[in-house]
């Protein structure tokens, strides 16, 4: 028995230290990950407006609506603006394409999402879904803008 103990004892602490190290490493990685996530996300969370492109992983992956992500013609050169609700200003996403887009394609996309075309008395033509969401296309400038607003 004594020989058995002498044989096993040197190995036991090695196993315990290894598990402890693994646990400490895991916790450290978690803390760093949470800290990084906080560092990367907080500037967007506590901002009333910001702009970015598809290359900005945090706002694009975590904070962008699928309507925007799936918009026709969206590429790395397109600029995405987000406005939080601020008093009378509704919240929403606005895509500013790098150049002109085919407006008919954008219209078909909005209709496929369930939007219906209406004539806004103040702002002209727009698309409404469920009385809670509005989309619009602005093609008057050198670049096309596709926007999605939350009306509630």
């Amino acid at each position, binding site marked *: 028995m004594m020989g058995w103990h002498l044989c096993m004892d040197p190995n036991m602490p090695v196993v315990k230290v290894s598990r402890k190290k693994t646990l400490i490493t895991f916790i450290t990685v978690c803390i760093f990950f949470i800290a990084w996530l906080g560092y990367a996300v907080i500037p967007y*969370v*506590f901002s009333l407006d910001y702009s970015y492109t598809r290359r900005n992983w945090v706002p694009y992956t975590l904070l962008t609506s699928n309507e925007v992500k799936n918009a026709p013609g969206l590429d790395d050169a397109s600029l995405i603006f987000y406005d*939080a609700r*601020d008093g*009378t200003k509704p919240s929403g996403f606005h895509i500013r394409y790098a150049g002109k887009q085919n407006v008919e394609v954008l219209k078909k996309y909005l209709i496929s999402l369930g939007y219906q075309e209406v004539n806004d008395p103040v702002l*002209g033509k727009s698309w409404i879904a469920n009385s809670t969401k509005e989309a619009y296309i*602005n093609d*008057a400038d050198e670049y096309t803008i596709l926007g999605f607003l939350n009306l509630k």
Partner: protein
Amino acid sequence: MSKREDIIEPEMAGRARRGLVYSEILGWIDLGHAQGRDIINLLEEMRRGEIYTDPYYDLVYAQSMNMSGFCAGNSIRWKVKKGRSLHERHSIALALMMQVSLQFEGLQVSAPYNWFTDSGFSAEDLVSNLLGFYRVVRPMNYFPHLKLISKAKALERWDYYGAVGVYKNKLFRPLLFPEPTVNKAVTPSYGTLPSFMTAIQPFNNFNKGVVEIERPSSRHDGLAFMYGSKYACR
């Protein structure tokens, strides 16, 4: 919270849902604030109230700011006697908007909200809200009458005076930023609203039983930090 890169060409102003332009009549105009969406919703609420069977209907008006799950704002609730003419409805809507705008901007300018935004009582906010009101109740293209300057000129004004959020305007009056001249010091000064933006007076006759204040707007009314918990953040 307006930024330099929000400045757009004046030709775009009529259809834009966001952006910043400078008017020689109204000063800076935030086109996001000047959409009048709040007024459209409020007038629709009044239209529905007028066809209910009850002699009175409730009106709730709110303004809030949302930041990814955090919400804070102000709301107000009035009980309105049925039978209001369109002009009276506009007058009531204007009074609601003006009261809540002042409370909400006051909220934004206080801690902790002013740590994140300089939007509270920003020079362009109140006057932009007022323009949004008139765009809905008296629909027409106001921009040709507002003497908008080109984007290049507007950028010059911004660069000379600095961010518009630095200048606080607690009145529904234009805060004008005169064109910088070489030999003369210029400073922002208050202008006068054009006559087409003073045609409607805010409702203030609370003694005739037409409007009863059910819940006045105050610093803490409608203040909420989570989705859906109070009127302002519904």
